[in-house]
């Protein structure tokens, strides 16, 4: 019976990507809460929305970008699973090339955009914490005799950590590919030829 080769790291990467996608529908990657849920930002490449006084809304452009990410992650997860089961096929490298980079690019892009937004907000006097809580005072209000401050907390959620794991597994699957795709040595070629020449006494 022929042994079927499987890229186990790729299999884990595909499954983790699809699980992360499912979790991201319910948990944002990063959440910012102002006051007691007075204003909330649920940031995620999969589902970004805003909450104001308990009412939720999203921006259509962000919704479309989220849909692109959902479709990308779905395609990546499925193609990575397909590749993992067929790593020795001639088209395996194309399947792997399509699926292994995108989760990493998405995680890095999300983190970079988030950091840029926080730096820009800080430039305007709004020091939003990336992780943890802080009391933020609204800039420009003290001059009018009114000071508004609120407890602001920012936190990365489980889905973000799952995305990092998925991206890492995708990279590991790519590194493991050369090991899995290496042509196997058949028993015939492995046997050392025996000298069958007659021994002259």
């Amino acid at each position: 019976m022929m042994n079927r080769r499987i890229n186990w790291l790729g299999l884990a990467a595909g499954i983790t990507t699809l699980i992360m996608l499912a979790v991201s529908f319910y948990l944002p990657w990063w959440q910012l809460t102002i006051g007691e849920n007075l204003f909330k930002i649920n940031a995620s490449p999969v589902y970004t929305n805003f909450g104001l006084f308990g009412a939720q809304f999203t921006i259509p452009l962000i919704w479309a970008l989220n849909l692109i990410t959902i479709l990308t992650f779905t395609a990546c997860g499925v193609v990575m699973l397909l590749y993992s089961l067929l790593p020795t096929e001639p088209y395996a490298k194309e399947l792997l090339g399509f699926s292994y980079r995108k989760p990493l690019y998405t995680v890095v892009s999300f983190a970079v955009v988030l950091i840029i937004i926080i730096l820009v907000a800080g430039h305007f006097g709004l020091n939003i914490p990336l992780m943890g809580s802080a009391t933020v005072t609204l800039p420009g209000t003290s001059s009018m005799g009114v000071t508004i401050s609120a407890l602001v907390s920012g936190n990365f959620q489980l889905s973000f950590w799952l995305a990092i794991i998925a991206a890492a597994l995708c990279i590991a699957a790519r590194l493991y590919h050369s090991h899995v795709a290496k042509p196997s040595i058949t028993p015939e070629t492995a046997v050392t030829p025996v000298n069958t020449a007659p021994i002259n006494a």
Partner: protein
Amino acid sequence: MNKVKFALTLLSIAIIVGPIAGLLYVYRDNVVGIVLPPQVKSLLSGNGSGGSQFSQDLSNFNSPQSGEQLQYNPDTGAISYPFNFTNPLTTQISFDQMSAEVVGGNGVPLGNVSIPATTIAPGANVIINATGNLNENTVSQLAAQNSGASKLNISLENVNFDVGGVKVHINQISNVGSIPTG
């Protein structure tokens, strides 16, 4: 280019172009709506014409209204200032703390007022009673300085309140009412 690579490239393009094309088609008559949802538009314009429950909620937001006159008992120094407030939102609002210093017309401190922690249910109208005590001697002295005036205008200073975790500090609210001096 082999067939698999071609198919995957097509898939990548379709994934990106599909949602963007769909969005542009849906918002073809309202391009601004792509970046400005009705809720944000109604917030910026300051009216509730967005059509959603959210915009209606926000447009119905009125600041607390003074329902009755400020009441003061010159014998005990007790002061109460009732005002009513309607919560137009679909979520409850909690006033966790409110306190202020009561001062006379020329900034002389007379006493303090505060309200207890109050939670207002969605759509409910409540009368919130700010109560406190004024120093009767200071009130009498101030009245005497004002040629025996029967009423004394008061203001609030260092008004602090905490609504839903947001702390607001107002340095001064002038002429909130007048109290009888005797």
